[in-house]
């Protein structure tokens, strides 16, 4: 990545495809899409463009759910979906393409069934994998437009870079709590995600939706904006969000718009890199390897902690979740309830520094940050409960809820 970005690969504009190459509409199509056909901006030609179009959606979660429903309903001929997740009960609050009947099944199967129910003529391609540097170009290459509905920084930079290399428009959306962002990247010479954010934040500084929560309807609004932009790109009509960042604040119901520019100093994107490394993500899911990293505190899974307690270990159990989470579920072993931000800010009061401490949150992320802060404050024996209260409840307390 050495040459200046002025040498960017021009993105391919799907709306420039010749009319002769587009599929014809049959009588069934004409009846089905009559409300589109009478719009000047769509008409017969536009509907044929949609029928001949292909869209890849990365992720079938909060953003992917509504946008896939609408793209299928609108008559997009071919839809690809990348996801490897299973439908979970806690997804149903916002992931409206899935339902109670598909909990426990692969999201791809659940999404395909719903898409085909809406539009049996839609060709649905499934990619039950994690998008990675070694498969992204092959997966993205056949599609006209990519819609980014992911939930993590490594995949967002990967999707962006792959789209830039292949010249594909990338329809961006992102959400957090009550706030959403949307834009169109790499379209008709416009900016891309790296022009907006050259580098990702270090891991841990930005909470995830699993940690911070998200209003269920928020991804519906942002996902529908992404679907709108996708259709406009396919039709070549209207003014897209290219060059603009849309901010949506659901709590105060405000839309704001900021200018986005191509950064002339940004390096050109010419190859894919190691995005986990770029984003500083260390995989702690493999427990054995996690112990190798010297963080000054121990990361132990629920079984290990359970066994140690059974053998007489008596740590001071600190629940660092927020008060409204304690109302949902709490464990009788917890002696101190103090939100992690407060633990980080002012420690544990007069608790002696040599007292063994066990920190617990919802799934282990916030408590690890509190653990690092306690180690820095001088505590000598700190353990983080990996998996948090949800892991504990799943393993040992079937009588309590998870959330």
């Amino acid at each position: 990545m050495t040459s200046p970005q002025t040498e960017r690969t021009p993105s391919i504009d799907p709306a420039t495809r010749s009319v002769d190459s587009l599929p014809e509409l049959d009588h069934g199509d004409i009846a089905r899409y009559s409300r589109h056909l009478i719009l000047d901006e769509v008409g017969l030609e536009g509907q044929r463009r949609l029928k001949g179009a292909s869209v890849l959606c990365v992720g079938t979660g909060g953003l992917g759910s509504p946008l896939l429903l609408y793209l299928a309903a609108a008559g997009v001929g071919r839809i690809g979906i990348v996801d490897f997740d299973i439908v979970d009960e806690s997804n149903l609050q916002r992931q409206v393409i899935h339902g109670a009947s598909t909990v426990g099944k692969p999201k791809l199967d659940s999404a395909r069934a719903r898409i085909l129910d809406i539009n049996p003529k839609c060709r649905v391609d499934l990619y039950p994998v994690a998008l990675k540097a070694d498969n992204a170009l092959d997966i993205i290459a056949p599609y006209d437009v990519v819609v980014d509905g992911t939930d993590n920084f490594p995949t967002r930079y990967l999707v962006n870079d792959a789209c830039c290399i292949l010249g594909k428009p990338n329809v961006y959306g992102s959400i957090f709590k009550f706030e959403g962002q949307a834009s169109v990247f790499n379209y008709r010479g416009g900016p891309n995600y790296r022009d907006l954010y050259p580098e990702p934040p270090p891991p841990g500084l930005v909470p995830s939706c699993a940690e911070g929560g998200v209003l269920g309807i928020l991804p519906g609004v942002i996902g529908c904006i992404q679907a709108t932009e996708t259709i406009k790109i396919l039709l070549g009509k209207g003014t897209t969000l290219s060059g603009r960042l849309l901010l949506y604040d659901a709590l105060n119901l405000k839309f704001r718009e900021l200018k986005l520019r191509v950064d002339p100093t940004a390096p050109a994107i010419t190859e894919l890199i190691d995005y986990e490394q770029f984003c500083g993500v260390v995989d702690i899911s493999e427990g054995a390897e996690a112990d190798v990293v010297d963080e000054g505190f121990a990361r132990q899974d629920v079984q290990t902690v359970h066994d140690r307690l059974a053998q007489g270990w008596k740590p001071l159990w600190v629940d660092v979740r927020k008060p409204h989470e304690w109302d949902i579920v709490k464990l009788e072993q917890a002696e101190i309830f103090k939100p992690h931000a407060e633990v980080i800010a002012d420690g544990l009061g007069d608790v002696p520094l040599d007292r063994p401490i066990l920190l617990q949150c919802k799934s282990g992320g916030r408590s690890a940050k509190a653990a690092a802060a306690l180690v820095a404050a001088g505590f000598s024996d700190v353990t983080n409960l990996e998996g948090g209260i949800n892991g504990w409840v799943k393993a040992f307390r079937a009588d309590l809820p998870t959330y």
Partner: protein
Amino acid sequence: MQVSVHIPTALRAFTGRQARVEVEGETVEAALTALTTTHSGLHKHLRDSEGRLRSFVNVYLGDEDIRFLPEGAQTPLAAGAELTIVPSIAGGRS
């Protein structure tokens, strides 16, 4: 010069949940310094260890990214100017 700063959801924990904070400052830089002086928890989210604005946090004056203003963070502010902090957020799938 009193100006207002829009605080994103992700950083409101450090401003006592306020979505908008009024600060004094003659330039963008001075206003941000006033902001992090009043709300010290924001400092490490906005600046790196050398005091530079972090690359994953964008600051806008009106609707312009200050990185693309000729005077950058030294751009003078008019009374009533609006600054917006826009951090990168990743949520969407899970």
